[in-house]
C-alpha cells in the first residue's frame, strides 16, 4: 500500500517553518495589528535570509 508522504523541497520546508514560527512569535510579543504585521514580515524575512546565509556558509564543507 502506498504511503502518502508530504515531500517538500529544502526551501519550502524553510518557508513553512518561518511562517508558522513567526506567527507564534508575533502573537507573543506584539499587541497592535500594525506592529504585528511589521514584526511578522520582518521575522519571516530574517528567518529566510539567515537560513540561506548559513546554507551558503556550509556549502564549502559539502565538497
Amino acid at each position, binding site marked *: 500500500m502506498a504511503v*502518502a*508522504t508530504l515531500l*517538500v523541497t529544502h526551501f519550502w*520546508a524553510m518557508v*513553512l517553518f518561518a511562517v*508558522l*514560527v513567526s506567527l507564534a512569535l508575533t502573537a*507573543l510579543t506584539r499587541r497592535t495589528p500594525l506592529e504585528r504585521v511589521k514584526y511578522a514580515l520582518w521575522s519571516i524575512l530574517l528567518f529566510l535570509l539567515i537560513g540561506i546565509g548559513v546554507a551558503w556558509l556550509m556549502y564549502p564543507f559539502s565538497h
Partner: protein
Amino acid sequence: MNETPEEKFPSNPVQAPEPESAAGRSRKTSSGPMLIALSAWLVPGLGHLLLRRTARGIVFLIAVAGLAILGYKMRGNVFPPHSTDPFGTLGFLADAASGIFYPLARVFERAGPDVARAAGDYGTRFIAAAGIVNLVSVFDAYEIAIGRRV
C-alpha cells in the same frame, strides 16, 4: 480644595488604579492560573481563549497544529516516552509539549517515521518546534492569568 500637590499628582504613577489592568482582567476569570496552564498545554490556544485573548489563542492553535501536522505528514520521528539516551528523552519532552497533538501522531502518521529522506528529518524538527511553541504559549497564558502580562 485642600488637596496637597502629592494627591493631585501622585509621584508613583505605577500605583495609580487601573480598572482594566491585566491583573484586573485576570481576576475576572474563575479558573486558576494552573488550570489555565494545563488547558493551554493540553489544547494549544485554549488557555488564551479562556482568558478571552481569542485572536492570540487562534494564532497559537494554527502555529502549533500547522507545525505538528506538517511534521507528521513529512513522516518525522516521534520520540517515545521511554528512551534509552538523553537526546531521546529531550526529544520526547519537546514532542509531548504539543499536548493533544502528541497522541494524534498515530492518526496523522500511520506509516511511522521515515527519516531516511530529508522531508522526514525536517518533519522531526517541525514536530519538536510545535511542542516548543506550545510551551511558550503555556507560559504566556500562565503569566496573563497571574497578571504579569497583558
